[in-house]
Every structure is written in C-alpha cells, then in structure tokens.
C-alpha cells in the first residue's frame, strides 16, 4: 500500500514536470492588422464590451463614471467595464496581465508608456487601425505637444486626456524676511543660486531655519526624477535622445554643461536635493521652511492655504522657471496621460474601444471634467480658451490662482522621449544624477558613461 501511495506521489510530481515542459508557451493573442473606417460607425448600433483600467483616486474615479454615463447615452449597446486599480501606478501589473493574457482592452497611461508600448507592438497603432483617419479627424483639436507625446514617427498610439507642467514656486514670507519687502523672484538660474545661498545663510535667533532651492532628485519616484532631468536638459538646449529616439545625446557639450551646472549648484549648496526621502520636498513646503521649488499645478492648491505671517494671503507664489542659458527659456517637462487600446483587445470590441477613448478625449464637457478634477490643463486646444482658466473662481476648490502663468509654461513644455527602453533609461539616468551630485564624478565622465550605457540598449 505504501508503495502504491509513494508511486502516486511521484506520479503527481512527474505529471507537474511534464506539464511544465510540454505545455506550449504562447504569446498573447493579438491582431494588429484590424482596420475600420471611423466615419462609418453608427453609435446607435455599435456593440461591444470594453474593459478599462483606471486609477483608484476619487477625484479621477468620479469624472470617469460621469463620462461612461454620457458615453452610454450615445452608444447604448456598448458596455464599459471599469476596473478600479488599487494604485495609480499600475504599469507593472499591466506587464504581467499582458503576458498572461488578462490585460484590459483600454488603459490610461503616462505618455512615455503609451509610446513605449506602442513601439513594442503592445498597444494598437491607431493610425493603421483607422487608415489614417485618426489624424485627419482628430489631430487638429489637440495641443500639438500632447498629440505628439502619444506618437512615434507616423504612428498614433493613444488619445491625450490632459496636460500639465511644473512652475517655479517661492515662499513669499521667507523671501521678504530674507531679502526685504521689495523682493522679486529670480529670472535666471544664477540669480536663483545667489538667492538660495542667501536663504541658507540667513540666521534667525542664532539658527538657520530655512531651505533654499529644493530639487527633487528623487530615487523613490523614478518618473518625477525624469520629469526634472528632461526639463533641465532642455534649458541648456540638450535632450535625452535624438529625434529618432535611436541614440542617447547626453554627451553633447550642451548636456555636459547641464550636468556641470547641476553639480556646481549642488556642490555650492545652492541646490538641496532630496535623495531617498521623497516626503522631504512636501514636508518642507508644508512646514513653511522651503523658499524655492518647482512643482505642478496639481500641488498648488494643497499648499496655497499656507499663511505664515497671517496677512490673509497665501505665502506660496509662482513665477516662470528661471532661465539657465541666455536666449533659452526655462523649459519644464510636459506631463500628459492618455488612453490607448491594448493589442490583446478582441476584434469585436476594437471599434467600441476606439470610440470610447475618442469620446473621452474629444467630448469637450467630459474632457474638461477630467482636467478640472485633476487640477491640470486639458489637451484640447479649445480647452485652453475655456473661461475656467481665465476668470477668477475662488469658490471652486480646484481652481488655481495662477493658471495664466502655468499656461505660458505649458505651451513651451518639452515631452519626455518615450521608447521601449524607457524603464532602463530611467534607471540609468538616476544613477548618473547621483554620481554627479553625490559621487564626485566629473560631468564629462558621467555624461559619457550614461550615454554609453543607454546606447548599449539601442544596439
């Protein structure tokens, strides 16, 4: 009897072995050749079921529920299956879901990932799918940078849903205390460094209570890191990759100058970087000890209530990003997310999926709903003209006092270059930053090393 049972156990283990070895390894089923003519779609008769991955925060969830309700009035036979993810950053989950064939039909992603997955054949090429109609019918409505941010070469991979960028913020109470009541914010990086050092040297009751310019070189949040470095490079006329995204261009004289300026500022103490303490930049802002920082409109309303000198006004003011190089504006990075269709979407649902993402991005009311709730800008050109961004509206908690300055900055913002190697590029650039500001390596060595490292990926 024991022998029989032992044999049975061996049999189960052997079966598991055989099953593991013999089971076919299959790729997820995709069809990237599906095409249709968007002009012939009849919303009233279109059918399909579309699963959508969406971020969990209430401020994003509610507008999406309203969007689905409105969409279903026009497309009554399409079912939208909204899946609330447990965290906003679900890129890793998506990779796994794609590999095991359970990826949703539609997903909202940062534009660099839309490009990255598009280049890998993992999200549908909307240009090919619609025979070029996506450009003909839709392109003109969008702010050019946001449209281009969902695109590689001649291929469109998603619809932009919103846009945003960062701006220079300063604590007016600290600045007036240190520099006097006639304080004016810096317009060049040199002025910023001087002011930052003065703030750090300032003494009150024998102590130095304030921080100067905080730069979130922040390893815990890779994408924030890339946000910073991409905008920084643009301010020197440099870029991370060439236009074709086939080569790293961080060893050019402009890029080396950008690295050198960052290192000099860090060495002199003009830049305080936050390293592995991601909460620091927020902590400093909230406890009223940081004088200068670059941040987005979405955070402004959280900090604008600070009133340290109790004069009834917010201490946090905003200004254009100081220029680092004469003749080049203080560029910041474009932030934009969009909706795209996974290539695992079944053929019978593809038209419905396309119509849904097109609706979310182009239906003015829906599009503006997303932008307002997220405290960012729309990606529709017409949305920038909306009175919401031009007329005071103190009663709306999402309304930002400085929309006009943010908008000027947005229009000169620079997108990050999405490629299928984006995750690795992110990691390698982060190391480069640390070697520069904390590792004591020369800007030339850092630039050459990181360029060689990234170029290895392209080969």
């Amino acid at each position: 009897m024991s022998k029989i049972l032992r044999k049975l156990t061996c049999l189960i283990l052997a079966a598991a072995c055989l099953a593991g070895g013999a089971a076919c390894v299959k790729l997820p089923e995709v069809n990237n050749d599906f095409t249709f003519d968007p002009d012939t779609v009849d919303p009233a008769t279109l059918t399909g079921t579309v699963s959508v991955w969406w971020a969990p925060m209430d401020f994003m969830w509610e507008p999406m529920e309203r969007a689905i309700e409105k969409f279903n009035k026009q497309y009554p036979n399409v079912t939208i299956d909204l899946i609330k993810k447990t965290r906003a950053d679900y890129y890793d989950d998506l990779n796994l879901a794609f590999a095991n064939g359970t990826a949703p039909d539609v997903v909202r992603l940062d534009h660099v990932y839309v490009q990255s997955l598009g280049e890998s054949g993992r999200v549908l090429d909307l240009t090919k799918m619609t025979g070029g109609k996506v450009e003909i019918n839709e392109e003109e409505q969008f702010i050019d940078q946001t449209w281009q941010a969902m695109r590689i070469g001649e291929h469109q991979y998603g619809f932009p849903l919103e846009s945003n960028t960062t701006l220079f913020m300063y604590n007016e109470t600290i600045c007036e205390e240190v520099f006097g009541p006639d304080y004016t914010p810096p317009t060049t990086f040199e002025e910023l460094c001087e002011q930052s050092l003065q703030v750090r040297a300032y003494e009150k009751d024998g102590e130095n209570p304030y921080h100067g310019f905080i730069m979130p070189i922040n390893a815990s949040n890779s994408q924030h890191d890339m946000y910073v470095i991409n905008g920084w490079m643009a301010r020197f006329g440099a870029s991370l990759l060439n236009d074709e995204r086939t080569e790293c261009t961080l060893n050019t004289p402009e890029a080396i100058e950008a690295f050198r300026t960052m290192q000099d500022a860090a060495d002199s103490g003009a830049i305080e970087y936050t390293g592995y303490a991601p909460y620091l930049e927020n902590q400093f802002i909230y406890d009223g000890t940081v004088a200068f920082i670059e941040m987005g409109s979405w955070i402004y309303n959280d900090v604008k209530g600070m009133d340290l000198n109790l004069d009834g006004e917010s201490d946090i003011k905003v200004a254009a990003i100081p220029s680092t190089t004469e003749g080049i504006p203080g560029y910041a990075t474009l932030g934009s997310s969009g909706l795209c269709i996974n290539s695992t979407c079944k053929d019978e649902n593809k038209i419905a999926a396309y119509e849904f993402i097109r609706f979310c991005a182009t239906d003015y009311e829906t599009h503006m709903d997303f932008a307002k709730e997220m405290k960012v800008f729309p990606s529709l050109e017409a949305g920038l003209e909306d009175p919401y961004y031009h007329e005071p509206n103190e009663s709306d908690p999402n309304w930002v006092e400085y929309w006009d300055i943010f908008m000027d900055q947005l229009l000169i913002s620079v997108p990050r270059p999405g490629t299928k190697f984006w995750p690795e590029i992110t990691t390698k650039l982060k190391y480069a930053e640390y070697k520069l500001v904390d590792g004591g390596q020369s800007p030339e060595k850092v630039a050459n090393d990181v360029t060689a490292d990234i170029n290895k990926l392209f080969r």
Partner: protein
Amino acid sequence: MKGIDIKKWYHKYRNDLKCYLLLLVPICLFSVFFVYGFVRGFVFSLLNYDLRFVMLEGLQFVGFEHYAEVFRDKDFLNGLLHTTIWTVVMLIGNNGFGLLMAVCLMKLSRGRKFFLAGLYWPALVSAAITTQITLYVFNPTETGILNSFLSVFGIPPKDWLVNEDTALISLMVIPFFTGFSQKMIIFYAGLNGIPKTYYEAASLDTDSGVQIFGYITWPLLGPVVFLNVLLSLIEGMKVIAPMQLITPHNDFTMSAIYAMYIDAFENTNFSFAFAEGFVMFVIIMVLTVIQNLTQKETVVYE
C-alpha cells in the same frame, strides 16, 4: 480467488492513508506552484520572451543564450556582488548575535522566558517597519537621527543611502542588529538539547567556560549551526525587500533578486529574468551541497 476484505485492508493501511491524504494538498500545491513553475520557468529561459520585442519578432528558441548573457550583465553581476556581501555580513552578524544571546540566556537562572520573549520581539517587526527605521536613522537631512547626532560634533549631514561608499552599509546596519531573533531561538533549542551529563563530566576536568564551549557545546551544536547557516544563506541570497523599499533602483545597493525583478516586471524581459533565477538557484544549491559535505566530515554527534 479470494476477494479483498475492505475492512481488513483499511485497518492495515489506515495510518498510511491518513498520512497521504494529509500530504495530498501540499503535494498538489507544491506540484503546481513549484515543480510546474520550475520546469515552465526553465522552458521560458530558453525562449526570447521579452515583451519589448516578442510581439513584433515572434516567439523563438534561443537556447542558452540568456545564460551566457547573465554572466555578462553588469547589473546582475553588480547585484550578485552586493548579495554576497549582504549574505556574508548577515550570516556572521545574525548567527553571532543569535548564538551569543542564546548562550547568555542559558546562563540565566531566573527570568529566562521574559528575556527570550523580549529578544524574539524584533522578529515580529515587519520588513516595512524595519525599512522605516532605516529611513529615519539615515535620513539625509539634519533631522536624520545619525546626522543630527553627528552634527553635535560639527560633522555636516551626509546622504548615507545614496553615497556609493555608505549606501549598502547603511541598509545592513538595522537588519544586522535586529535579525538575530530566529537564529537565537534555534540555537537556544539546540543548547537545551545537549545533555547536562556532558557538562558535568567536563566540569571534572576544567573550569574554563571557553574550553567547555569549544570542546562540548560547539561540536554538539553542529547540526544546529548547519541549519542556521543554511537558513542564513538562503535568506541572504534572496534578499530584495530593503533594496526595493529603501533605495529603489540604486546601483550601489542593487541585489541579484532585485535585478531579476526589474528585468521581469519593469523591463518585461521575462526569459532573461528566468535565466537569472536559475543561475541563482544553481548558486544556492552548490553552496548548500558544499556546506552539507563539509558538515558531514567534521561534526561528531556522539
């Protein structure tokens, strides 16, 4: 032909049946999640299953190409080096402290259970809490515990978790001092298992505690030391949590398993990650076999 007497048969084999029925669930789980996964992973490691390319190029058999690549991959080799340093340091620290604490506990005549419970406490703290402690201690600003202590002597704040020379050491400090609890419990059980008669006999020859430890305790503790060292080796070689939670994507602290995780779930190069996993498996297996052979040769039980 005589029929089977079920009652008699059941009576004869009931204990076997009960055992195997109880084992059936774990055997099935083990088969599905380990044996099947193990073989399937090996098959994957021989393919080009990299989501960045495979949808465009199609699935191909590449043989042992990924295995050769693993030994050329700078990130993995860097991770392997850090993993080895981590394993050796933790092995020495955790087992050294564990043994010291267990011996001290044995010397106590009163309050042994109280101290045993107290010293086991760190094992109950989750990895997330330990990482937070590390972050508080090595916070790069003046508010960090270590930096604020050093500022008393006029030493400027240092970015411990980022600097090449200090990042890995900073990660190791807290686990080095707090990771001994489980080892201590095992040593304590081992020490309790050594018959008192040996000590009584030894006390007739010498009063030296060091000699008694060297000639009686240490050799008889051999199997326990073997177990603890083996556990430490395996724990050390698969370390990922501190690196991922405290210093994500940091070249200076990257571990082999974290590099594997990044390759699989961030870079979507699943085949290469599986190959890295199998290399780690072989390394751990070889170390275990070597240790096993060494232990058999030197330890005398009676």
